[in-house]
């Protein structure tokens, strides 16, 4: 599988995403934001960081980069797109995903491990996560509080678009387990077509036991499986 990891000015988890994909046995390369071509990408990762210094608003400038037009087409054609942290912010700013990410409720940056409950296995990003498995994955953001109006939230629920929620170690969606005040403890969502997803936690930082957790790999394994099915389907 080929992963294209976008590189905006001051993306800083771009190399980590490439590392994680390669570590898990697939190929990945960086795509400069001024390039309009993604190459033969099977999946696009919009990585974490501080694209354009997060000036104006997180992700607000990156959406105008030439590469984002191509990513939109790629997504429209059913390609898999995963936004992590700042990448999630870029995807909401680009309207590839609904809602917005605002300042954490305590106005502080949070870097810590959190527990993630997978709300549904019905997506290319969650299908391989073992049933009932609570994932321990780090977060690192100052603006990760997921926010949307009532109508959007209702739609997210109705369409089963909420993929991950912050929980305690036993899987309860408590307020104290919510690091940033996100509505409904939302940590990550997908679009209606279920081929574009974004999440605030960093699965790419949790793919090797020596980093304290390898439970983020289940998200990548889900993508690998979805891509494999796609290839098999195309060949048939």
């Amino acid at each position, binding site marked *: 599988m080929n992963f294209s990891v976008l590189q905006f000015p*001051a993306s800083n988890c771009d190399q980590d995403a490439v590392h994680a994909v390669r570590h898990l046995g697939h190929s990945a390369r960086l795509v400069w934001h001024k390039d309009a071509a993604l190459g033969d990408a099977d999946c696009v990762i919009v990585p974490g960081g501080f694209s354009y210094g997060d000036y104006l608003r997180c992700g607000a400038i990156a959406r105008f980069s030439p590469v984002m037009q191509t990513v939109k087409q790629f997504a429209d054609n059913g390609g898999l797109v995963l936004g992590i942290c700042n990448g999630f912010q870029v995807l909401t700013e680009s309207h590839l995903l609904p809602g917005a990410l605002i300042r954490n409720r305590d106005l502080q940056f949070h*870097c*810590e491990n959190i527990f993630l409950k997978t709300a549904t296995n019905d997506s290319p990003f969650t299908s391989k996560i073992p049933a009932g498995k609570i994932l321990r994955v780090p977060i690192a953001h100052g603006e990760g509080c997921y926010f949307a109006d009532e109508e959007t939230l209702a739609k997210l629920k109705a369409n089963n678009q909420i993929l991950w929620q912050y929980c305690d170690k036993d899987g309860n969606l408590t307020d104290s387990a919510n690091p940033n005040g996100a509505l409904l403890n939302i940590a990550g969502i997908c679009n209606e077509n279920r081929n574009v997803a974004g999440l605030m936690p960093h699965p790419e930082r949790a793919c090797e036991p020596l980093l304290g957790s390898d439970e983020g790999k289940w998200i990548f394994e889900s993508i690998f499986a979805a891509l494999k099915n796609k290839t098999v389907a195309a060949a048939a």
Partner: protein
Amino acid sequence: MTEPAITPELVAKHNLTPEEYAHAVEILGRTPSYTELGIFSVMWSEHCSYKNTKPLLKTFPTKSPKILVGAGEENAGIIDVGDGIAIAFKIESHNHPSAVEPFQGATTGVGGIVRDIFTMGARPVCAVNSLRFGPITANGESDISNSKAEIANNRRLFAGVVSGIAHYGNCFGIPTVAGEVYFDKTYQGNPLVNAFCLGVLRHEQITRGAAKGVGNPVFYVGPATGRDGLAGAAFASQDLTEESAEQQRGAVQVGDPFMEKLVCEACLELLATGAVAGMQDMGAAGLTCSTCEMAARAGTGIEIELDKVPQRAANMSSYELMLSESQERMLIVVHKGREEEVKRIFDKWDLPWAEIGIITDTGHMKVRHGGKLVVDIPARKIADESPVYQREAKEPAYIAEVKAFRLDGIADTIAPADVLKKLLAFPSIASKNWVYRQYDHQVRDGSVVLPGSDAAVIRIKTDSLPVMSAELAAKVGDPTVSEKLIAMTVDCNGGYVYLDPYEGAKSAVAEACRNLACSGALPLGATDNLNMPSPLKPELFWQIKESVRGLAEGCKAFNAPVTGGNCSLYNQSPAGPIDPTPTISVVGLIEKLEHVTTQWFKDEGDAIILLGEAVDQADPIFGLGGSAYLQVIHGKKNGSPPRCDLEVAKTLHTTLIGLIQSGLVKSAHDCSEGGLAVALAESCISQLIARDTPRLIGATIDLSVVAASRQSAADQTEDKNAALSRDAATVRLDALLFGETQSRIVISCKALDAVKVVERAKLMGVPAVQIGKVGGDKLTVKTASGEFSAPLTELHDAWWNSIARAMA
């Protein structure tokens, strides 16, 4: 624009003495221009020239076969870590700017040190910091209590500095993996902000800051020059005064981590082209320092045209352009004919660049502005012939009083559980999670041991290294490297150093190395940051001199050569000088992943062993001098600090490493502030699984065994007086629990291995005794005078939430 005439007043305003000015005139053979006067002023400031400390710094050990770039040669030292990989690291202070403007002072402190590292051709992979503030909590009735307004101001500075470090490091994308924070009245009005950065590279990628190759063009890259940070280096070399906060705000630079990230990526990309002949960041004294130093190192001359320098403000004078400390700028000497590559890469990153000059063979730094020659200085002379002062040192009167301090009149503790909780909640001891949670400490996929253990551990992986040039890639072949594990820590108990600069400084090095040993690492090298008061007063210079003597001996003993560092003098507010604080950061190597050790107890039933002598029997105040216990419980900062026997420490560390490498050690935590009781409590409560999810694991401890062995040792002595005081030690519970005797480590191992561990340690000459076992939900400690117990949830709450509560 007319320039002011050079008068004695103007010279004095530039912090040059009449003698220094005369020397400048002699070097030039004429009266300096206004711009030249400014240049001499910053180049001969303490910050740039080390004029007051040079003779002392020469006593540091600086050699080891592993050193590739040594102290003073370049922007940072570089050490070989095997397999063709090297690390570059350094610590630097930003104290004065942070006192005036905490957020920007801290951001630019981080920015400056990160630039020092990528200037060497290394990719910055982690950051560490060492911070000092005035108290953020009221300390009851003790004599170190503080007014509400002062506490509020200390909290403002603390919050500002932490958010500045977070802002810069997080945006740049460097994990801040370790640090230390102390709170003490001595730092009120003069906080300390020391930032450390470590980068990685292959040996062949080492880049020099030398202006090599006559005829090579000189490029300026990075954001435009403005009036910010004018003469910051000179500002950093003065006392902080009442007015300085207002007057000098303009001397504080403004940091832009976004720019720095772009400049770093662009520079590393440019280095991989092989087009670069030399590179230097514009840090202190901006264009002045970078041009002078580069030419001086290469023995060449350099000529620049200020009209070509990108400028943010209109009508900037040559004085302003030369002395501005606008951030994130680099000076790059490029091999002639390869200019296009610079342009292509910096255009790609949308960064300003300008070709501003040329390398010459004149040995002079020449600056033209508006068609006129405004500066013409022999570069090597100004860089190398800076004044050097042998300052007078005199032992201060307070030292005799400190040495005479005894425990008579200080009642022993009768409520050890309460004392333990108070100490755990004391902000200097309490968990720093409120701080490090604000720092991204995991970006770059390398953080193996996160903040919260004795030392941070990172791994260097193949893709941590900078991109190779085509030539190097061909030479290297398979780029894959075996992963390296690097441990690092930063330490200094300024209170100890105040009470006895020599012993205190030795203890700082010993503690840093002990922390490394607890993580499984042996030292590779060290970088120091001398945060000191004015060198002009003999009593204060004595503190500096004695501190350096202690650091030098410590670094020698542990084979941790100093590869560079920073001096920050004149740290004093109107309230008086700070405690001398020679911060030391030691970096070490862990051989194998399975040797990585953390401080928290692991499993129920494991044996707990104390390595090292429980109480220093020869110390008349039993390790309580300068202790957190005396300070927090009795309101006293007094008494000679615990003695630091470097041989004993070294044996302890190598013994522990041996045990770790044999796979016998499950946890290791050093005893430092708060003594044995705090170390035991921390071993029970410091593991963090995730947000709001600590892993608490109890322990049952019996220290009566320890007391008994000490009693018999005391009986055998001949010196009656000493024996008397030793007898006192055996009954002093506070010394046993909270004394800070050096060279002690609490380890845990499988119950079955306990005898083996104790025997092996004793064989190596390290006192060792099993003092308890892991298990339960309480910490229970039995001593000769009784037993106390505390639920872990209470201990954890006191320790974990103390700083957050103060800052809420």
